[in-house]
């Protein structure tokens, strides 16, 4: 299979921006850790794909969408503390995935690699990333309403469907980026641009826009670093992002834009 030119850069740009677009809502809903753990569920999906010889992308997306529904269902039950259950369940799926995946593929599954893709699959990923980013902007008002005051949002007619929509968008963006960034680190890619932008932005609209730009920029720069110095792209992107986050800390009180 010939991989189209600049595959990694295109994925980094569009999936990175999509991660940045959804990140602020995940962060403000205090779901950063749930989101991070959710990405681990992809591993058994990758394992099944490797065993049954289909593209891991489909295994990943099926497992992540299933996990999004699970988190949504758990959140609706007041007596279950969802964090603990999500943590246990998703770590267990990480363990199962590791046991099932052949040794040769473990590192790539966990930390990503330069993806090898057919042109149609690449285009599907890029187009889906664009649509998901657009959805984050279109639904921003509703997501924000549910964050600022859930009761007020419900009185204004916003139902739990939007909570599910946010989780599904998040799960799908994670699925899109997993080939490049890996199951262990992809959750972080949704959190890092949003964390940097939160330190710099003074309003929600600027926050979402800045986070989307940073997500794309950090991912592209990370891929470039990885190609230049022969690193894995996932760790390069995440470390570059964390470095920028540290630099953004002095602005945390006042904001910049």
């Amino acid at each position: 299979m010939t991989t189209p030119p600049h595959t990694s850069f295109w994925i980094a740009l569009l999936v990175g921006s999509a991660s940045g677009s959804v990140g602020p809502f995940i962060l403000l809903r205090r779901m950063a850790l749930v989101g991070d753990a959710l990405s681990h569920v992809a591993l058994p999906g990758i394992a099944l794909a490797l065993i049954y010889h289909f593209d891991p992308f489909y295994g990943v997306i099926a497992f992540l969408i299933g996990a999004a529904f699970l988190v949504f269902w758990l959140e609706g039950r007041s007596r279950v503390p969802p964090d603990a259950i999500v943590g246990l369940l998703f770590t267990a799926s990480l363990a199962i995935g590791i046991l099932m995946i052949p040794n040769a593929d473990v590192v790539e599954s966990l930390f990503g690699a330069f993806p090898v893709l057919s042109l149609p699959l690449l285009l599907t990923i890029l187009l889906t990333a664009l649509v998901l980013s657009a959805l984050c902007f279109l639904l921003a008002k509703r997501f924000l309403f549910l964050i600022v005051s859930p009761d007020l949002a419900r009185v204004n007619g916003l139902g739990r469907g939007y909570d599910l929509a946010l989780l599904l968008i998040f799960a799908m963006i994670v699925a899109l980026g997993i080939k490049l960034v890996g199951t262990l680190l992809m959750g972080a890619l949704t959190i890092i641009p949003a964390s940097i932008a939160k330190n710099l932005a003074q309003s929600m609209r600027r926050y979402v826009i800045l986070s989307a730009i940073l997500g794309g920029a950090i991912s592209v720069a990370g891929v470039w670093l990885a190609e230049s110095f022969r690193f894995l792209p996932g760790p390069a992107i995440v470390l570059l992002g964390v470095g920028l986050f540290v630099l953004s800390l002095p602005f945390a009180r006042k904001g910049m834009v």
Partner: protein
Amino acid sequence: MADTTVLTVENLSVTLDGLPLLQNVSFTLQRGEAFAVIGPNGAGKTVLFRALLGLVPSTGFVEWRPDVKIGYVPQRFSIDRSAPISAMEFFLLQSPNFWRPGAAFTKQLDQELKSMGLGPGVLKKGLGELSGGETQRVLIASALLQKPSVLLLDEPTAAVDAGFEETVYTLLHRVQMERGTALLLISHDLSVVYRYAQRVLCLNKSVVCQGPPVEALNPQALATLYGEASFYQHEHGPGHGHG
């Protein structure tokens, strides 16, 4: 005589995990009146509001007049203070267009800010930077954007600095008088109830007394409501801390 009832509640009960939080509460709310709900902590006042708004499952009968428009004013925002959300963006949650608000919306917002005694400078502030008094007035102004016929206020001065409570009530009273908006409010402050409410409901899981404040709030009712020995008139909500 025209029916002026905007809300009818009959035998409303709420039970959570087998515990009765509210038992057989009945009352009506009339158009344009200020109606206060008082009671000790844990008496079910907020539960009553949540049941009226359909936010918790309940039994009994709750009927809002079909043409009624409800504005709900919660006590506070549910976000941490570091969230970069400006007051303007909180108002934009009521706008059809969040990213580019129209002129009509901006004009109406300007009017509601004035009615709550807020300057345009408040719009640029982050929600976490607002003082207690500003937060409460921003929440009320946002509810007013929907032109409600009833405002539900859950302890509108719980987080407001002492001395400023009066201002919030004066502004609310003006809204009630000028626009005919009915006020259904939870209050801890009996002096506010005497001064501004036409009717009061004393609640301690079930209805203890009901009627115009001067009649309903007799010593016996208050003793039953708050307990004879521990009765004291005014208690502040969270934010003032104990010990």
